[in-house]
């Protein structure tokens, strides 16, 4: 039973446009690295049932090795579920070509700066790749047209890197580089933006900047954002909903106030933290205990 591969398409009822207010729908999704039919299969993700609403910022949090990155790779179609159904705006993700998916979903991995000294503008324009048609006789040049330049320029303006256009990406600081990579993703003109640890290695100012930009894109243009993050405070302040993973399955889900409780964090992370309302937003604020001296709450 467990070893049978479920290749059924998504439920026909969910395969209609009426379900399209949901960006993603995961039904009983299992995932493992390697062969899902192997006898000793070890599922990295098991029995996930997750909905991502269109136009929300969803945070995926959890301890190391809880399957956060695997989940976001599934959403980006970089990995295929071993079992279960995964649909994007009501269409089975399996049925879409990678290029089709890339016109709807943009993915920014943790560390993806180009290996060579491309300029910032060239890097951002790479995001236009899924929008170009490769003609058989074109020798693959595919010069950028007005649409491409407009999308790239707008993405660069959004991420405030217009002034860096002709700088080499290899010469940028960490923050500038991350903004370039997000601009590259925005140049894809996606409806869904998937970010894996977008604020790791960034200083405070850049963390806040990137999160505010994401909120603005969500508010003004209905962009759906899925963020994988280790930073629970950031997730609390900037995400509409949070999915907390533990050992490959969903432990808790809901608004930050619902998910981020002392009990949940104790169960998931195995440590005591102090949680109080954020003085500004009233959302949960997590404070680490002094070493060896857990807070008594």
């Amino acid at each position, binding site marked *: 039973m467990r070893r049978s591969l479920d290749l059924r398409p998504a439920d026909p009822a969910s395969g209609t446009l009426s379900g399209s207010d949901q960006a993603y729908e995961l039904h009983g999704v299992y995932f493992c690295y390697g062969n899902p039919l192997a006898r000793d299969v070890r599922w990295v993700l098991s029995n996930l049932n997750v909905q991502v609403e269109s136009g929300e910022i969803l945070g995926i949090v959890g301890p190391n090795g809880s399957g956060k990155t695997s989940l976001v790779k599934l959403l980006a179609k970089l990995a295929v579920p071993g079992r279960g159904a995964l649909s994007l705006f009501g269409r089975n993700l399996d049925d879409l070509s990678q290029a089709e998916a890339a016109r709807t979903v943009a993915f920014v991995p943790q560390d993806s700066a180009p*290996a060579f000294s491309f300029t910032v503008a060239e890097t951002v*324009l790479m995001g236009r790749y899924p929008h170009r048609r490769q003609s058989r006789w074109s020798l693959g040049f*595919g010069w950028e047209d007005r649409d491409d330049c407009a999308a790239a320029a707008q993405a660069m303006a959004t991420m405030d890197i217009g002034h860096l256009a002709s700088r080499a990406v290899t010469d940028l600081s960490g923050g500038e580089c991350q903004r370039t990579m997000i601009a590259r993703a925005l140049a894809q003109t996606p409806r869904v933006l998937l970010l894996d640890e977008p604020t790791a290695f960034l200083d405070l100012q850049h963390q806040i900047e990137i999160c505010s930009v994401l909120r603005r894109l969500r508010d003004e243009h209905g962009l759906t954002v899925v963020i994988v993050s280790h930073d629970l405070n950031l997730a609390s302040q900037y995400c509409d909903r949070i999915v907390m993973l533990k050992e490959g399955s969903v432990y808790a889900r809901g608004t930050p106030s619902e998910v981020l409780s002392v009990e949940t964090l104790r169960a998931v992370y195995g440590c005591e933290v102090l949680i109080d309302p954020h003085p500004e937003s009233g959302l949960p604020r997590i404070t680490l205990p002094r070493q060896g001296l857990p807070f008594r709450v």
Partner: protein
Amino acid sequence: MMPSAGHSTSPVPAVGSPSLPSTTMQTPAYMTEDDRPFEGAVLTPMRWGVIMGSLSVVALLLAVVCLQFGTQYIGLGNLLGVLSSALFDHPSDDTMLNTTSVILLQVRLPRVFLGFLIGVCLASVGVALQALLRNPLADPYVLGVSSGAALGVALAVLFGIGTTVLAFSLLPVCGFLGGLAALLVVYRMAATYDRLPIHSVLLAGVILNAIFSALIMFITSIMEPNRSFGMMAWLMGSLTAPAYPALAVLSAYLLLGLVLLFKQVRVLNVLALGEEPARSLGVDTERTKRLIFLVSALLTGAVVSVSGMIGFIGMIIPHAVRLVIGADHRLLLPASALVGGIFLMVADTIARTFFVPSEVPVGIITALAGGPFFVYLLVWRKDRLA
């Protein structure tokens, strides 16, 4: 005329499947008409044309200069006279001009052309491998692909496959098989998880080079002495004037490989982001990797079977060209190809003229130029490799 953004690459959508509500059909609101030009920040067809045009002119001029030099200097007037009489097919009675004509048409012209062609191939393969491995030090010679191909050719020669009429069709094939085996081994050795750490790629290349060199030396030492000397000279990397039919076959073979590489230029750009991001942008990375490995082995195998192991062109040229014109492979690949051709053409002219009456294997010259450059990259430009 490019299709506007948002058109599906698949011409016919699956029947009955609802299409994705695509934002790209109507440009989303946050893509307003802020049409800011990227002055000087991106490659334009104009810039491409200017750079490729001027490089072609330089290549032609230098080809003429290379044709002039040799054991006997040929003046420009004579040279043009011979070329035009050969082109327009009017025989001349001047015996002086006839000697010149034989030297020029039977010896120098094919050799200069061969040098150019081999330089083009080595530099192109270098660009492609560097992009694929995301490693500015990749080069068929450094990665052991050349020695793999050389081993294939040496085995073929040892077992007498290469001395028959089939010489031209089989030696490159043996080189191709050897080169491909080397590439696959390097890749397998270096790939940890889904990353290719720069230093493990180099290390794998070094190990492979050592093993293959030992095997080649073994083969050379059990050959008859007179054959082994020729083998040594070939291994060092040297060009000889080929016969025209052979040259034509080789050119066709190499051009096919080059066209396949040149079709990948945009994909090579996106691959610089890394394999996974490239895949998320819709690049079929497995297919691209297979294609580039095959074509690289194909080109290297053919080149090695003709000219032995000419090293470092695949590394120096792309790197130097990238420093000057930028990293966009749409220009980097063809420009490196031309510069590589020019470089080897000139290096070979030096090899055959500076030490008259003896002739130096051109591989020595490229290695003497490339080795120090390699050290420079490794030691002084570490920052670029991290």
